[in-house]
Structure formats: C-alpha cells, structure tokens
C-alpha cells in the first residue's frame, strides 16, 4: 500500500492540534483586552498581581488535578481535603504552642504529609477497590468535609499564637522583587508539574493510562502504581495550596474550600486537558485558573453583570470550553 504525501491534510491537522494547545492562551489575551477596554484600572500592575495571587490556590490544586484527569481519573474531594488539611494544620500549630520557625515548619510538613495521605487513600480505594473515581472521591469528599466540621465543632479553627501568625503572614501577603509569594509558589509547582508530566517516564505512563488503560497494561505499564501516584500528587498539591491559603485568614471553617473541586476541574478543562484522559496540559491549566479569576475580576470592575453571578459565568465557561474542545477535536 502506498501513501503519497498530502501536504494540505497534514497542514490542516497540525493547525488544529496547535489550536487545542493555544486556545486557552488566546482566550486569556482576549479577556485581558476586554478588561482593559472596560475599566482602565484593570490593566494596572497591582490589579493583575492581585488577580494572579488570588488564583494561586486553585492553580496549584489544578496542577495536581491535571495529573489525575490526564490519567483518566477524577478527584472531587480536593475542596474538602483542603479544609481538612487547613484545620489539622492549625490545630497542630496550636497544640505545639510555639511561635518559632521550627513549629511552623512542623505544621507545614504535617499539612503536606496529610495531603499525601489523603491522596494515597483516594488512590488505593480507586485502584484496589476497583471503584469509579467519581464515587470514591464523592465519598471521601463527604468524609473530609464532615471531619473538619467535627474538629471545629461546627465553628471556626483559628491560629491562637499571635507571634506565629505574624511569622506566617508574609507567605500570603509578602513578595520578592514585587512578585507575591503565592505567585512564585504556583509557578514553581507548575514548572515541576510540567517537568514530571512531559519529561519523565512516569508522566508518559500517566498519559498512556489515560489514553487507553488496556494498552498501558499490555505494554507493561505498572498501572496501579501510576494511578495511585496521580492521586498522591493531587494530595500534595492540595497540601501546598493550603500552605499558601492559611496565612490569608489564619483560620479554617466548615465552608473553607467549598466548590474548589469544581473550579479546579474547570481550570483543567479550560486549559485543554481532555476530561476523558490521554492529554495533559499543565501550562494550559495554569492559564485556565487565571482565566477564572480574571472573569470574576472583570465582572467586579464592570457594571454589565452583577458579581453575584460569577458562579454562573464560570459555569458557562466550562461548557463553552468543552464545546470548543470538541469542535477542535472533530477538525482533526
């Protein structure tokens, strides 16, 4: 069978593949232009830094979600997990009682460890229990959420040591060379995430698993290990996000992290990662998280739509993102 070169078709395909990767960046540029036209205050450095800082928690969580979703899984528990980790971390700090750097370090490590443990639990139940990740994480979402309500006895868990609060505060409010720490944290997490997903064999295995689990299994990919690891990475990312989040308010409540899972999934999907797995775009995810926050910011700065409708607009965005993905996919 001979296959002659068909330049037109190859070009067309290349163009549409690029479209998928590029569309979140194009959307970002369009939003920035729109924002600048609507309100001159939008394009100031302080406003933009503020927007990106606010998007940091979701972006960091969404980087982890990129691994889970690219591997063909789903994690609905991240919002509740964040609340639980925040609560446990504050309680740990309060119990240690000190106001020094050592105490803080122990608290931070506890947060990361708990995140990894929660992810491990999700991963093991999904792999060894052979239950749909949707159901598993729906279950753990309820468990984590009610644990934090129980720990807080329905109220608020607050950092009691004043010195410690002052020590910890700059992690959210501080900056180096004018760049706030949360932005640095999220760029580092994204860079490490991209490195792992694109350049290691583990990352390749995640994509293979999400593309077709059977092919991965028949190719000798250790699918249980790979899948469990994606959930652990998700848990660690949630832990890191909490580290940046806690100093903002210094407390955890039963409503901390509410609906973060939906925002994280939205960011991942806007970023071009395929919800059915097999394609993962870390930088797209980062842009997706920023877009979500930008939309909210533009709505606050403009008078077209009430800012109470932010959730509705974000909901519409995920649907539009899916429609765009599908039409790009068909164009192949």
């Amino acid at each position: 069978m001979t296959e002659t070169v068909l330049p037109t078709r190859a070009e067309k395909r290349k163009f549409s593949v690029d479209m998928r990767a590029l569309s979140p960046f194009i959307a970002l540029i369009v939003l920035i232009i729109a924002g600048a036209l609507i309100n001159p205050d939008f394009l100031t450095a302080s406003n933009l830094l503020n927007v990106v800082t606010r998007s940091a928690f979701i972006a960091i969580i969404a980087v982890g979600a990129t691994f889970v979703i690219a591997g063909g899984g789903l994690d609905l528990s991240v919002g509740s997990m964040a609340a639980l980790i925040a609560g446990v971390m504050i309680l740990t700090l309060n119990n240690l009682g000190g106001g020094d750097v050592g105490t803080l370090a122990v608290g931070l490590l506890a947060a990361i460890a708990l995140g990894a443990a929660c992810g491990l639990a999700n991963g093991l139940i999904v792999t060894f229990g052979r239950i749909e990740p949707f159901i598993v994480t729906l279950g753990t979402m309820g468990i984590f959420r009610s644990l934090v309500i129980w720990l807080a006895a329905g109220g608020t868990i607050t950092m009691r040591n004043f010195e410690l609060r002052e020590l910890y505060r700059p992690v959210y409010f501080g900056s180096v060379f004018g760049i706030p720490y949360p932005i640095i944290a999220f760029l580092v997490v994204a860079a490490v995430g991209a490195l792992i997903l694109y350049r290691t064999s583990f990352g390749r295995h995640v994509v293979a698993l999400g593309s077709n689990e059977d092919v991965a299994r028949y190719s000798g990919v250790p699918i249980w290990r790979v899948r469990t690891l994606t959930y652990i990475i998700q848990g660690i990312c949630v832990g890191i996000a909490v580290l940046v989040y806690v100093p903002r308010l210094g407390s955890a409540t039963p409503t901390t992290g509410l609906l973060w899972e939906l925002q994280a999934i939205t960011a991942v999907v806007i970023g071009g990662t395929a919800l059915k797995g097999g394609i993962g775009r870390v930088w797209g995810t980062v842009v997706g998280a920023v877009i979500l926050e930008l939309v909210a910011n533009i709505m606050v700065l403009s008078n077209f739509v009430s800012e109470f409708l932010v959730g509705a607009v974000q909901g519409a965005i995920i649907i539009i993102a899916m429609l765009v993905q599908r039409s790009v996919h068909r164009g192949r």
Partner: protein
Amino acid sequence: MDSVLRAENISKSFGPIEVLSGISLDLRPGEVHAVIGENGAGKSTLMRILSGHLPPTKGGLHLNGQPITFSGPVDAEAHGIVLVHQEILLAPDLTVAQNLFLGREIRRFGFVDDKAMRERARAILRELGTTIDPDREVSRLSIADRQLVQIARALLVPHKVVAFDEPTAVLTPIEAESLFEIIRKLRSQGVAVLYISHRLNEVKAVADRVTVLRDGRHIATRDIEGLEPLEMARLMVGRDMSKLYPEKPETASDQIVLTVRDMAVPGYVENASFTLRRGEILGFGGLIGAGRTELFEGIVGLRSSQGTVTLDDRNVHFRDAREAMAAGIVYLSEDRKGKGLLLQQNLRINLSLAALDKFTSGSFIDVGAEEKALDRAIKDFDIRTRSRDLLAGQLSGGNQQKLLLAKMMLLEPRIVIIDEPTRGVDIGTKEQIYRFIASLAAEGKAVIVISSEMQELIGLCHRVVVMRNGRVVGEVPQADLSEDAIVYLATGVHEERAAEIAAGHA
C-alpha cells in the same frame, strides 16, 4: 434473470488509498451469491457500500433496474437491504426480545408493548429453527445464539437482499450448518443472499454463484457448478501460495525454553500443556473462542491463572506483563486497536511505551533517542507513513501491526507470542510480516503464532498445537500439517464429514 441489486463499476478510496476499483456485481432474487477474497481484498468494504454504510467514490447502485443512492444504512434497510454484521452488535444487558426491537419498539398507547414484542420475537426465532427464550439476557447466550439473534433482528424488517459478513467465523461446523439451513430457506423465499467468506468449503456448500475479489479488484464471477475450492483458492490468491510464505528456517532446536504444564485460566482454559523450543515457530490453532488468547494472556500475567510455567529451568509466575517482559517474553495482542497501540498518540510515544526504561537518562526521557529509535523502526520494519507526526490511529492496519512489532522488539525478547499477526492486514504486508517472523526464529528466538487462518499456520509453523473448548486437544507435527488435520482437532469433525452433514440437510 433480472437483478434485484446491481453494482456498476464501484470504486472506493480512503484518502489516497483505493481499496476497491471498478467492481461490478449483480444479485438476483432467489440466489446465494458468495463474495470471496483474502483479508484486505475489499470484501467488507464492498458489502458496506451495498448496504448503505459507505458511499462509493465512483460508480453507482441500481435497485430493480433503477439507479439509487442510499443516504445511510437506515435508508438501505427501508429499501429492503439488510446486513448481518460480522461483529456482534447487541446490547448485552437487554433481553433477546428487547434487542430484536431496539429502536423500533412496538408501542401501545405510547408505552412499549412487551407482550407483543415477546410474541413476535418467539415467532421469528422459531422460524429460524431455534428455541432461544426471548426473555433471556443476551449476555447469557452463547456466541452462536447471539449471532442467531442478530440474524433475527436483521430479518425483522421486510427484506429483499440479506448480506452476511463472514457469519461462520465464530461458529462450529454444526452451528454453521444450521445457519446454511436458514440461508437456503431465505433463498427459497426469493430473497437474494450475499454471502461473504473466505472459507471455501462452505462457499461450495451454500452458494449458487461466486465473485472473487483480489486486492480491491474484480477477478471473476462464476457459477458454483464445476468450481472447486482449489480453483477458488487459485483465483483468490492469484499467485503461487508458496511465495507468500518464506522458507521455514531449519532452526528449530531441541533446546526447550518454555514448558507450560496444567495451565488453567478460570472460565476459559483447563489443563493446557505444551513445550516451546529455541528457534521454533509454534502455531496455535482452533476456532475463535477456543481459549488460545486467554491461555497466553494467563501465561504472561494479563489474566489470573494457575499452572506451572518453566522458563529455561526455573519455575516462574508472572503477575503482570511487566514481569513477563523483564523475563524476555512479549505478547502482541490480537486487538491491536484496543490493547496494542494508543491510537490517539503519535508514533514516537507508541514505539517507546513498553521499553521506556531504555530511553531514560537520569529521571528524564531522552526524546532525541526516541526519535532515533523511530527512524530506525520506520526503516527496519518498513512502516509507511506520510508524516512521522501522524497518530497511530491514522496508520493503515498493516502499518499499525508493524509499529506494534517494532514496539515490542525494542524489549529484545527471547520469546515472542503473536496473536493473529495478519488480521486486517493487506497481502503485501502479510508477506513482510511472515518473513519477519521467520527471521525471528532464524535469530534463535522462540515464536508462538496464534492464528485462525489455517493456511497461515501451515505455511509458517514448525508445529501446530490445536485447542478446542479451552483444552489442548492435540498437536500436528510439521510432516502432517494439513488443513484437515487442524480442522479435525479444532472441531472434532472431519471436514468431509461436516460437508456430508451439510449435504444430508440440503
């Protein structure tokens, strides 16, 4: 005699590849017209065009002498042309009656009328000479019964032309015979039957006329009178059969590398034992569903299994494919698209997936080394691709198989198990794959070929082990290799005897 459906100069191209060129065919009422040809000859494409699943690129169809264009299979059905698919396309959790009427439920006051549908289902199944319970779930039926349900579903609509696409691939000779009964009954009712197969003995038993396709071209249309299977084979292959298969390398040694004893895969295989020697090509024959695939998936750890597997002088038990690969055993699945390749990923990612450890330096993948390996694979395995950025799913079946071979050979295995190596592969590529398999044996590797094509087993293998109903029932040494010997072991019935049974029913 006037034809009911006529195809005139039909051509079909997929992209730059022409798979059918200038085919003409006429179907008369009350005849069984067989279309034969090797895999990749274009039989299935022709059938899909005649039944409205595909539009022809050139040429046209005539129904009762009038030119006609079908907008799709539903339109073709409305004109009385129905196709019985090769694969079973039924909803497994629905009952037989629910499947028969799926999408065309009988309604009463807006609600489905289960009673009426059950009655109609029972009637039509009885007409087909079977006693399948209409209330049984399809998942609990045997493959042969599922095929009958599929036929019943096709015959439920008023039909003038019924097309069967390789209907006996999953049937035992006895089951096939009851299918021929149904076909003869259809013929006596004045229906035109189009029968696609590459099993020549059954074509001889059931057909009135035969059209031969080869490499997408029309070779001949003959009456069955005076056309013997041997002549059909000559027309189908169009060349000396011995040229298709390479010389069998004289490398089969006495050194046993793999011994399998009392292997059991729950639900599929019991008590399977065999040995494999260095430099040998060992064939595994049997009907589809005999448990060959499951046996080897059990051995390499892709299914749970019990039994003793001795590699060299060591007992081994693999828990997953990774362990088997580490021990030097690779298994190439028959389901290339579902289990062999990531269709949505490019060639490079597919090629290195199983042997990724060979491409990592430190913790990172060396993409440059991957690209070099792809260059080598494209050259060594003659993978024909118009661009190296293509996705695996955009390659033709033959090139996908070559890519899968290249992928698994990166693991440098000692034992290679290839399941249906040439399914869906065109004849030119077949020859290349056969030569490649022979060269593996010549290099001293041990090769196992699982195939449902008798000719392939005979032309390629040193020995053939035959399975039936999940058991190893015998072994045919090189000197005795013949289609009849394999068929006898695979079915428990001599081919002549099956033909006699067929003749007795006619």
